[in-house]
């Protein structure tokens, strides 16, 4: 093989000046799920990049237009499959806003408990993956261990570990089990313990700090303009949390704080998520004290809530009500609303349009990941290839939600 620049002196030999194009993904261990990044490299520095989502697109919004409103719940489960309960509650709240009903107090507290458990599992998963991708496998296992105990509670409550399909319009599928309070009381110290352990190993770890601090910075103005929400926005120093700014499900009555970062770098995002897990534990402690043992969990409206099974089999009224809800579906009035909750990654919104029939006319999910991911282009540009992994990990892109 002949030399590249044979006319030049050996001392003047340079690498080719034109940028190299590199495909990262769609199937790559650091690309959570399937996503492609087209990197334009100058040496190891990323001059430009194009993020290509869509490999997990399965037509969520179109699928929702085919059945009844209740039949959307299995689909919303599969949006953010790390914290499906938050999606369930978010969608239920959207339809309830359209119908203009409010669930009983017990249901609100129950939703807060399940939602915060889901948020803990979401943040733990993100930080666990972030540690692992930087070579720290032990914190990953610690986090996963605790996440599994959180999943155990959710399994005990809903019967499923991940895709619960537990939300219902006007309530929840089942009332809380007797063991819920004790289970939550047992798991909170474990979460605290593992947070302390990981803090001790990671937070002041030289390697971790060097890899994360000052890497992938995002400014406040840029983040707001890009529509970034959630822990990523709070890491830049904006104290926007839907639970505080526009409270729902009685969040205004809980005592918790919104942690914010300073630089908007990868380290801040890690720390914001760590602190949010602590705040979620704090909310959980208050919520289990408030949760009444008795009382209705669903709204009292036979047009919305399925009757009890033994009544369905024994009375004609309940049979008819059951048939109408299952065959025709819940019929919200004509109109459109946008309802938003704080999901695992930011503002999870549902813009829903009803034409008055039992079938959704349009279900738009405002996916926090999708808008957060766009900001990764800004954060990665100018960094090295090795920085892609921690930056992208701290975005916490969930394929199911981003690509729908």
């Amino acid at each position, binding site marked *: 093989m002949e030399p590249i620049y044979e006319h030049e002196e050996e001392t003047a030999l340079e690498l080719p000046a034109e940028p190299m194009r590199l495909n990262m993904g769609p199937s790559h261990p650091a690309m959570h799920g399937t996503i492609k990044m087209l990197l334009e490299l100058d040496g190891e520095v990323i001059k430009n990049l194009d993020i290509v989502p869509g490999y997990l697109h399965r037509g969520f919004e179109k699928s929702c237009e*085919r059945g009844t409103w209740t039949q959307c719940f299995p689909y919303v489960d599969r949006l953010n499959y790390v914290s499906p309960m938050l999606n369930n509650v978010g969608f239920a709240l959207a339809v309830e806003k359209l119908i203009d009903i409010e669930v009983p107090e017990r249901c609100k507290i129950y939703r807060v408990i399940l939602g915060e458990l889901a948020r803990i599992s979401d943040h733990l998963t993100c930080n666990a993956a972030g540690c692992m991708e930087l070579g720290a496998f032990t914190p990953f296992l610690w986090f996963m261990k605790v996440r599994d105990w959180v999943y155990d509670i959710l399994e005990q409550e809903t019967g499923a570990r991940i895709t619960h399909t537990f939300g219902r319009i006007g309530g929840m599928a089942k009332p809380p089990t007797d063991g819920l309070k004790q289970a939550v009381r047992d798991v909170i110290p474990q979460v605290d313990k593992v947070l302390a352990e990981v803090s001790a190993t990671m937070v002041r770890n030289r390697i971790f700090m060097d890899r994360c601090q000052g890497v992938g910075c995002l400014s406040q103005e840029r983040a707001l*303009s890009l529509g970034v929400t959630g822990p990523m926005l709070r890491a830049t120093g904006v104290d926007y949390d839907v639970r505080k700014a526009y409270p729902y499900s009685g969040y205004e009555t809980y005592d918790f704080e919104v942690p914010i970062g300073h630089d908007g770098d990868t380290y801040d995002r890690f720390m914001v998520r760590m602190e949010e897990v602590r705040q979620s534990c704090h909310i959980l402690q208050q919520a289990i004290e408030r949760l009444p043992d008795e009382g209705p969990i669903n709204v009292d409206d036979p047009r919305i809530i399925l009757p009890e099974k033994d009544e369905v089999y024994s009375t004609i009224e309940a049979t008819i009500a059951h048939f109408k809800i299952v065959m025709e579906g819940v019929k919200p009035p004509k109109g459109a609303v946008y309802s938003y909750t704080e999901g695992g990654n930011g503002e999870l919104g549902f813009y829903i349009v009803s034409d008055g029939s039992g*079938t959704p006319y349009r279900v*738009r999910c*405002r996916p926090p990941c999708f808008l957060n991911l766009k900001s990764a282009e800004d954060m990665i540009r100018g960094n090295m290839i090795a920085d892609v992994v921690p930056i992208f990990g701290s975005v916490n892109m969930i394929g199911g939600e981003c690509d*729908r």
Partner: protein
Amino acid sequence: MSKQVLSLLQERFGAKILAVDSFRGDDEALVAPEAWHEVALFLRDDAACTMDHFIDLTAVDYPEREPEQPRFDVLVSMRSQRKNHRLRLKVRVRDGQLLDSLTSVWAGANWTEREVYDLFGVRFKGHPDLRRILLYEEFVGHPLRKDYPIAQTQPLVQYRDVGPAKLAPFGSDEGQPFGRIDWLARMQGRNQQVSPAIAVQHGQQPALSIRTEDTGPEAPQAQPVRPDQPGQPDQLGSKA
């Protein structure tokens, strides 16, 4: 609080704000298409509005509104970080009509406009990089339009031909149609809804009788169409 923003908009832009609405507390303004960019820029920069936080941009398809009214609703939501109020702008555009891109106002509009173009086919003027984002370049049509059949498939890699022996002896949705509303039929004036419950409620024939009565251009076939047959994209639903 955003009621004030609505009245401010009406004061400032007059006839270009076609309607305002506050259904269930969601403040919404219907804007004339030519003022779309102008109103958005005003909302971002005005000291009383300061809508600096982009939230969402999406669209809804109403094919039955045509030809009197434009077919698509494009909606953009935003909020103010300082004043904590929200607003939703709505604009109506016809199929093929160009709408001003909002990428110069909020950077977040870039991907969401690409998504609206991808799934609805609404084109944006001045968008720096308008190409498909969730689907692949070879995809034909825009799937979130109501006239795109819900069960249609466009595989890039052909389905494997497994032969009849390995398939179930019925179509994937025989008996209960996949979608409850057959939008293609509805837009052609045959407003037969495929859900038996809905059809009866609308005073129509039960949908199950479509199979024998519908002798339109596409007469019912002897064999149900299988979604997983190799070859051209197929369509399921009431005509299967």
